[in-house]
C-alpha cells in the first residue's frame, strides 16, 4: 500500500506544520537541497555529536564499573579487573564482583540500550511515525507471552527432561521464541504478494498485542502466587541476570540486528519522503521493510528474553537524538544506539545503588529517568509545533 497510512502524520513536505520540516530536509538523496543546508546550519556537526556521545558512553561505562553496592574504591575497581587471583579473599572477591557481576551487567546494558535505541530509530523511520517503538510490532508482548507461558505452564507442558536440560535458559528461550513467533504472525498478516502494508502491520500489531495481553491475563489468572510474583518481576525488567554464557549467545542476534538495521539507513532516509518517492529513487521498498522488521524482531527479541521488559529506551532515545542531529536515519540510528546505551547504563547504575543492598527494577527507572528528560525537551521545542 503506497498511500499514506492513516496513522502517521501528514507526509506532504509543503505542510505548514514545522513537524514536517525534518522530513523535507532529509531529502539527502539530493544532497544539495537548500532546505538541508538551512537545517544543518542550526545543528551541531554530526561528527561532534557522535564523538560527544561516544565520550559520554565511555564515561558512563567507567561510572558503572566504579559504582555499585559492593564497595570498591574507584581506582581499585579498574585495577581489580586486571589483577590475577591473589589468594587474598577480600581482593579475590572484589575481582569476582567486577568480572562476574558488574562487567556482564554493563555489557548487557550496552546491548539493551543500543539494541532498543537502534530498533526504535529504524521503526520510527520506517513507519514515519515518531510514536513507533519496538513494542508496536509485537516483539515485547510476544516475549512476555512466551515468558508467562513457561512460568505458569512450564511445569505442566514441558517434558521434565527438557525443562531440566534447559534449566536457567528456559525463560529466555521461551521469551525469544514468543517474540519471534508473535512478530512473525504480525508480519504474516500484513505481508502478501511480496508486499508489506505498514498500516496493516500497525493495526495487526495492536490487535495481536491485545490478544497477547489477554492470553497473559489468562495465564495470570491461572498462575499461583509464586508464579504471579515471578511474572510481575520479570515484567519490570532487570539487568541482574547478566552472565557471560548468556551474553555470548545474545550478542550475536543483537549485533546482527543492529548491523542489519544500520545497513538500511540510506534506504530508510529515502523512505521518509514517502514510499512512492523512495521507489522512484530506486529503493527496494518492500525488501527494506522486511529486513527492518526481521532485524528488529531478532535484536529486540533476544534482549527482552534476557532482561525482561525495559520500556521507553526504544521510544525515547531516538527522539532525543533526533532533536539534536535531525531526522536523517544515518545519524539518528547510531546516535540513538549510543544514547540508548548511555541511558540504560545510567539507569541501571541508579537501580543497583540507590536502595543498596536491595535493587530497584530497571524498567521503572528507564521510564522515570527518560520520560521527564523527554518532556523537558518537548517543552522547549513547543515552538516547532506552532505553540
Amino acid at each position, binding site marked *: 500500500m503506497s498511500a499514506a497510512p492513516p496513522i502517521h502524520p501528514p507526509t506532504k513536505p509543503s505542510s505548514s506544520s514545522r513537524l514536517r520540516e525534518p522530513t523535507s530536509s532529509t531529502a539527502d538523496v539530493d544532497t544539495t537541497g537548500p532546505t538541508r543546508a538551512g537545517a544543518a546550519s542550526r545543528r551541531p556537526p554530526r561528527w561532534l555529536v557522535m564523538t560527544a556521545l561516544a565520550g559520554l558512553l565511555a564515561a558512563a561505562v567507567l561510572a558503572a564499573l566504579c559504582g555499585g553496592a*559492593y*564497595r570498591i574504591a574507584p581506582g581499585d575497581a579498574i585495577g581489580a579487573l586486571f589483577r590475577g587471583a591473589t589468594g587474598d579473599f577480600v581482593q579475590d*572477591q572484589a575481582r569476582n564482583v567486577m568480572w562476574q557481576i558488574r562487567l556482564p551487567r554493563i555489557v548487557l546494558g550496552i546491548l539493551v540500550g543500543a539494541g532498543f535505541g537502534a530498533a526504535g530509530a529504524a521503526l520510527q523511520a520506517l513507519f514515519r511515525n515518531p510514536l513507533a517503538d519496538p513494542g508496536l510490532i509485537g516483539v515485547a508482548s510476544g516475549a512476555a507471552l512466551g515468558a508467562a507461558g513457561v512460568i505458569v505452564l512450564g511445569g505442566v507442558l514441558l517434558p521434565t527432561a527438557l525443562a531440566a536440560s534447559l534449566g536457567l535458559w528456559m525463560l529466555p528461550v521461551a521469551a525469544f521464541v514468543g517474540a519471534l513467533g508473535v512478530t512473525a504472525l504480525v508480519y504474516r498478516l500484513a505481508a502478501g504478494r511480496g508486499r508489506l502494508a505498514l498500516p496493516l502491520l500497525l493495526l495487526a500489531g495492536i490487535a495481536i498485542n491485545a490478544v497477547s495481553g489477554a492470553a497473559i491475563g489468562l495465564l495470570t*489468572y491461572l498462575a499461583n502466587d509464586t508464579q504471579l510474583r515471578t511474572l510481575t518481576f520479570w515484567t519490570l525488567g532487570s539487568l541482574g541476570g547478566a*552472565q557471560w554464557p548468556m551474553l555470548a549467545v545474545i550478542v550475536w542476534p543483537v549485533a546482527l540486528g543492529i548491523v542489519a538495521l544500520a545497513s538500511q539507513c540510506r534506504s530508510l532516509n529515502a523512505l521518509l519522503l514517502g514510499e512512492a518517492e523512495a521507489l522512484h529513487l530506486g529503493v527496494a521498498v518492500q525488501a527494506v521493510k522486511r529486513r527492518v522488521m526481521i532485524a528488529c524482531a531478532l535484536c529486540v527479541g533476544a534482549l527482552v528474553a534476557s532482561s525482561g521488559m525495559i520500556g521507553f529506551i526504544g521510544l525515547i532515545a531516538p527522539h532525543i537524538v533526533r532533536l539534536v542531529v535531525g531526522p536523517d536515519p544515518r545519524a539518528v540510528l547510531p546516535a540513538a544506539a549510543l544514547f540508548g546505551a548511555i541511558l540504560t547504563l545510567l539507569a541501571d547504575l541508579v537501580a*543497583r545503588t540507590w*536502595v*543498596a*543492598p*536491595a535493587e530497584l527494577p530497571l524498567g521503572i527507572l528507564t521510564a522515570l529517568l527518560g520520560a521527564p528528560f523527554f518532556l523537558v525537551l518537548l517543552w522547549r521545542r513547543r515552538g516547532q509545533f506552532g505553540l
Partner: protein
Amino acid sequence: MSVLTRRALMARGARLAAGAWIGSTLPAALAHAAAAASGAKDGPKRVVVAGGALTEIVYALGAQHRVIANDLTSLYPDAATKLPKIGYLRTLSAEGVLSLHPDLLLAGAEAGPPNVLAQIEAAGVPVQHFRHGYTAELVRETIRGVANALKIGDDGARVAGRFMSDWVRARDSIDTQYGIARRPRVLFILGHTGNQVMVAGQDTAADAMLAYANAENALRGFNGYRPLTAEAAVAAQPDVLLTTTTGPSSAEPTVSLLAQPGLANTPAGRARRVVSFDALYLLGFGPRLPQAVAELARRVHTT
C-alpha cells in the same frame, strides 16, 4: 512461605532506603576480615537471612547477633525489622548481598532469582538452601538446617526437640477438643481489597493450616490462590471467614470484608464470623507454628 501484600511491600519500601544506607556504611570489609579469621571454627558471624520463617528460627536459636541483614519478609520479631534490608526475597541483588560481606546466606525456598544465588555462591559466600513445603516436619528440618549452618547444632537439636513436643501437644489438644465436632468450613481470603476476593485452594500454607486445625477449606479443587466471585463465595457456604493483617495498623477486617459483595450472604457473613491473623504468624511455617495452629483451631471452632 510468607505472604506479603503489595501494599505492605510498598510501605516497607520507604523504610528500605534508610535501612540500606546504614548497612552500606558499615565498615564491612574490616568486619569481614575479622570474621574470616575466626569464622571457620566458631561458625559464621556475618549472616544474611532471606526469608521470614528463617529469621524467626534464627531468633529462636538465639543466634540473632550474627545476622547483619535480612529481607523484607522478615517481620518478626520486631527487632528483625530494624536490620538493614536486602530487598524482597525473590528479587535479590548479587552485588547488594555481597556488599555486606556476609560469610553465610540463608536462602529460604522462595529466595532468588536462582542465578543471583549462583553468583553469590560463585563469589565465595556459602549459600544454605531450604526446601519448600507446609509440614511441621519440614519446620523441624529447617530449624536443624539453620543451626547446622550456624555451627550450633546442639542448640538446633534442643530448639527442634522443643518445637516437636510443642507441636505434638498442640495437635493432641486440638484433636481432643475439636476432634469430634463438625469441622467448620473456612474460607481463607487474601488481601480483601478491589472488586474480587483472592481465596486459597489446595497446596497453600492456609490450606495446610486449616487441615492441622481440624477445619475444612471451604474451597477445594484448585491449587494456589484464585480470585473468587461473589456467587461462588455464597455457593461455598463458609462458616468462618479467615483473613490476614499485616502489621498493627490494619483496621478491623470484619467490616471491610463483609462489605464485599457476596461475603455478607454467606453463613459466616450472617453470623459475622470473621477471624484475622497476622500474615507471617498464620502462614509463615516458622517456630511459632504450634501456637499458630492452636490459636487458629480455637478461633475457627469457637468464634
